[in-house]
């Protein structure tokens, strides 16, 4: 089974009926999302190198999978992300301060999930999948016209909780769309050490409506996600998309990928870059007005400046913040710990 593709690496549109729906607006919009996402990602990376962030996990290379999928959803649809989904988060309007806060270590979850219908990141692999299924059960009960999408990685698919979620969703035909970004690696573990049969095959075995798609082809991802979401929305039951993409950077800023993978592999994937492809198409079709690319470049530069500014501007939290929100209703015991720590800390002032 070869991944569904609409846009070849050299920027040609495949001859596929779906190609008919591709137009200039769509392409420019998706391209802009990807360019801005890559820029934020690169900027955050260098901020980590400068010591402004404790850690950063790059989305570099996976922009098409994230932008293509989330742009195919409605704003009313909910998303349960993993932790590398910055491009998707940005499409939902989540800003640089919200995105970087957790990695700077000033707070945990960075944003208000309800505001963006985009849950905070889940760092415990696959734990968000059952959440998405439960949330979808609720939507289903209400007859709400909503799709719940959840992102996860190739490695996460080995966790028991991921598989419980697949089975559960099918059993209750919950309106969930599982979106796997198969970026070929789980830190240093290649997919060959992760599973013996491709995930899309396993998912079909569970009874999920599955598609395998070229995750570096934003048009294919967008089309496949729109189709999957239609099916889920119209009550055909849950679906899974496996997007074949690549983690261009190390797993995180703490990881040195040279220890376990070759430059040749990286070079190969460079030729499949999602942004280059779409740019070629836009240029070939002359779909961009004069100045589009330069204006976009300066917009990206402004974003980069904004990222640097908000990152450095984030103040360290007050010690007292660690006591907040342990429980919705604070217990007397915790109030006591909190007060006595405040008194203790105060005893050091001058």
């Amino acid at each position, binding site marked *: 089974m070869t991944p569904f593709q609409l846009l070849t690496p050299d920027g040609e549109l495949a001859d596929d009926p779906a190609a008919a729906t591709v137009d200039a607006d769509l392409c420019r919009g998706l391209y802009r999302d990807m360019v801005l996402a890559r820029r934020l990602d690169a900027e955050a990376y260098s901020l980590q190198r400068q010591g402004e962030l404790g850690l950063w996990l790059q989305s570099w290379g996976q922009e098409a999978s994230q932008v293509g999928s989330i742009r195919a959803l409605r704003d009313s649809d909910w998303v349960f992300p993993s932790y590398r989904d910055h491009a998707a988060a940005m499409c939902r309007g989540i800003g640089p301060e919200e995105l970087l806060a957790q990695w700077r270590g000033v707070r945990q979850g960075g944003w*208000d999930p309800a505001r963006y219908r985009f849950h905070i990141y889940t760092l415990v692999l696959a734990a968000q999948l*059952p*959440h998405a299924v*439960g*949330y979808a059960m*609720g939507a289903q009960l209400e007859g709400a016209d909503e799709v719940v999408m959840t992102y996860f990685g190739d490695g996460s698919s080995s966790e028991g909780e991921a598989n*419980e979620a697949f089975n*559960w969703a099918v059993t209750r035909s919950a309106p969930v769309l599982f979106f796997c970004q198969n970026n070929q690696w789980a830190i240093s573990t290649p997919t060959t050490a992760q599973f013996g049969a491709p995930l899309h095959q396993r998912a079909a075995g569970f009874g999920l409506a599955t598609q395998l798609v070229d995750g570096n082809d934003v048009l294919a991802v967008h089309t496949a996600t729109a189709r999957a979401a239609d099916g889920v929305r119209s009550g055909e039951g849950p679906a899974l998309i496996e997007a074949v993409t690549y983690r261009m950077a190390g797993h995180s800023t703490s990881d040195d990928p040279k220890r376990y993978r070759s430059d040749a592999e990286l070079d190969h994937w460079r030729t499949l870059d999602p942004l280059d492809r779409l740019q070629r198409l836009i240029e070939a079709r002359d779909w961009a007005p004069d100045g589009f690319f330069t204006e976009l470049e300066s917009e990206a530069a402004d974003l980069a400046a904004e990222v640097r500014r908000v990152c450095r501007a984030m103040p360290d939290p007050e010690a007292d913040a660690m006591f907040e*929100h*342990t429980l919705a209703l604070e217990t007397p015991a915790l109030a006591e710990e909190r007060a006595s720590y405040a008194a203790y800390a105060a005893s050091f002032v001058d």
Partner: protein
Amino acid sequence: MLTLSQSINRALRHALESDPEVMVMGQDVGLSGGVFRVTDGLQKDFGADRVIDTPLAEAGIVGTAIGLAMRGYRPVCEIQFDGFIYPAFNQITSQLAKLHARSGGRVTVPVVIRVPASGGIGAVEHHSESNEAYFAHTAGLRVMAAATPQDAHWLLRQAIACDDPVIFFEPKCRYWSKGEVAEDADDPLVLPPDAARTVVEGTDATLLTWGSMVETCLSASSAAAEEGRSLEVIDLRSLSPIDTDTLVASVRRTGRAVVVHEAPTFGGLGGEVAAMLGERCFTSLEAPVMRVGGFNVPYPAARLEEHYRPDLDRVLDTVDRVLTY
């Protein structure tokens, strides 16, 4: 008079009736009414959408309950037996307990997890665990242990109404024991959820206990009374948080304390209680705070449980040591 299991059934029924967001979910809770019949009749009356027979996957039960809670529901999950909560431990510790804090207070997860707990019914392995200490040591959870039909009913209603996640332990050996259950919430018998309850007042020593051991401590105090010894019995009810004021006040008065629980003593929650009392009652203590609990071994085969579980005699034996220290 209701049995403890009936009183829980009534509490669930009340919650399902009064709050459309309440759901009951777990293995076999629907059609069959649960292995202990605690959810008997609920699916018939409230439908399979609100009383759900789930697939056989504990992580899935808690994980989907979290998702439902984020959607605005109040799921009450049943874990069939204490020993089967471990597959859900990851969802409970990293997600259920921490989501409110991790989201900066933006996400609340009002999920209740009901656990038929502890031994005394001659069950096979993994069906008699007393694992409350794991959850009490997990910040972000409330932990409750009901010992009577009255508490089982009202504590559970309070747990369901609470916006925090609650691990709710039910002493399975007491499911069939009967007791009065107050009719309405402003009955003086209905205590706040965090309050410990002084079951019997006494002057010579305080027995601090919960769940399956409350009855045992009551018989101990009656037996001691016949020998002219006055033992106060306190049922903690809430294991996290612990109502330290009530405990401390009692022990400062009696000067002697014994903590009794069914879980292994080593590393058990009795250590927390004893340490706290040692710290706050230091000058009042006339003897060390002693602990009576299970031994530091896996719960034994059914025909050994009478030796394993603290009983009247073991409690009195320790009370003697405390009184004659």
